[in-house]
């Protein structure tokens, strides 16, 4: 029997930094979202060098804490939907004649040791030209995909006043329990129902901003500075 091959020094080094494999490189069609740049700049090393652990006078950066989002964490992931699947439903469905979408998020990169502290689903919609300007806004429902197809259990409902800005909902506590690990894959059914008129909208993009705390990389929790 062959003994398992020991990982090379490069692989061992990456594992020490919490990475399973060396990433292959930047995907061609994946720009860096502005929110990720903002979060990065909050902890700009240049600024940290001139004023350690501070972003501005008086503002101390707490270790293992994402200041901008106000939650504990040391890893932030921006996960894109793996291809929204649209389905136009009949008048008996909760969305009437409008479409509902199945979105899939691959969370297999999240280690079981990581504790999720924030899971923000962000959606960008566009109103259909023929029905633009729905009076009374919309109601968004987010459900778990049922076995087979269609909406299973509805996880949350939220009023949406306008589609001019991205629609955001917090999934932690709704899609999975607050104290539980993130699922390997998250399949959701999104539906946007007009409150008054028969206006419909189309989903342009859905993404998930997931913040987790990996206690293995958070030394200050176990070793507070004197």
């Amino acid at each position, binding site marked *: 029997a062959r003994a398992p091959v020991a990982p090379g020094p490069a692989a061992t080094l990456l594992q020490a*930094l*919490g*990475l*399973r*494999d*060396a*990433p*292959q*490189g*930047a*995907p061609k069609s*994946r720009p*860096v*979202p502005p929110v*990720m*740049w903002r*979060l*990065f700049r909050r*902890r700009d*090393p240049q600024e*940290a*060098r001139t004023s*350690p*652990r501070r972003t501005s006078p008086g503002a101390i950066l707490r*270790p*293992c804490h994402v200041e901008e989002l106000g939650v504990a964490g*040391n*890893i*932030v*992931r*921006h*996960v*894109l939907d793996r291809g929204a699947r649209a389905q136009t439903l009949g008048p008996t469905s909760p969305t009437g004649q409008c479409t509902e979408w199945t979105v899939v998020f*691959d969370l*297999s*990169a999240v280690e079981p040791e990581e504790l999720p502290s924030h899971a923000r689903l962000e959606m960008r919609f566009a109103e259909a030209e023929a029905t633009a300007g729905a009076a009374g806004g919309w109601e968004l429902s987010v459900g778990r995909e049922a076995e087979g197809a269609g909406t299973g259990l509805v996880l949350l409902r939220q009023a949406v006043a306008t589609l001019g800005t991205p629609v955001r909902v917090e999934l932690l506590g709704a899609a999975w329990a607050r104290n539980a690990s993130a699922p390997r894959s998250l399949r959701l059914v999104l539906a946007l129902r007009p409150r008054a008129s028969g206006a419909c909208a189309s989903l342009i993009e859905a993404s998930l901003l997931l913040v987790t705390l990996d206690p293995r*990389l*958070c*030394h*200050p929790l176990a070793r507070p500075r004197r």
Partner: protein
Amino acid sequence: DAEPAVGRGLGGACRARRLYVSFREVGWHRWVIAPRGFLANYCQGQCSLPATLPGPGGPPALNHAVLRALMHSAIPSTTSLPCCVPARLSPISVLFFDNSDNVVLRHYEDMVVDECGCR
């Protein structure tokens, strides 16, 4: 881009030296988005007496390191000198693409040597 390493017993007292880690040099530039590199620094220098003793503004020396240096100066064959190692470090954040095409911001503690000490 580093301050040149000095030979054993040379180079003065234990202190932080300049070391810039370039992600291009280590071949990570294809997946690390930012920063392009960072000033990691490293520690080098002698830990013999009196350098081992705490200097003004420097890190407090461990009593063990002082006594070890004292023992070494009295009877060099009994023990080696204390080691010049990081005494205070600070974190950096790295923005990168993972293998699932996710954009990841990861915060790493203890990446930059701010201060060295004899331990």
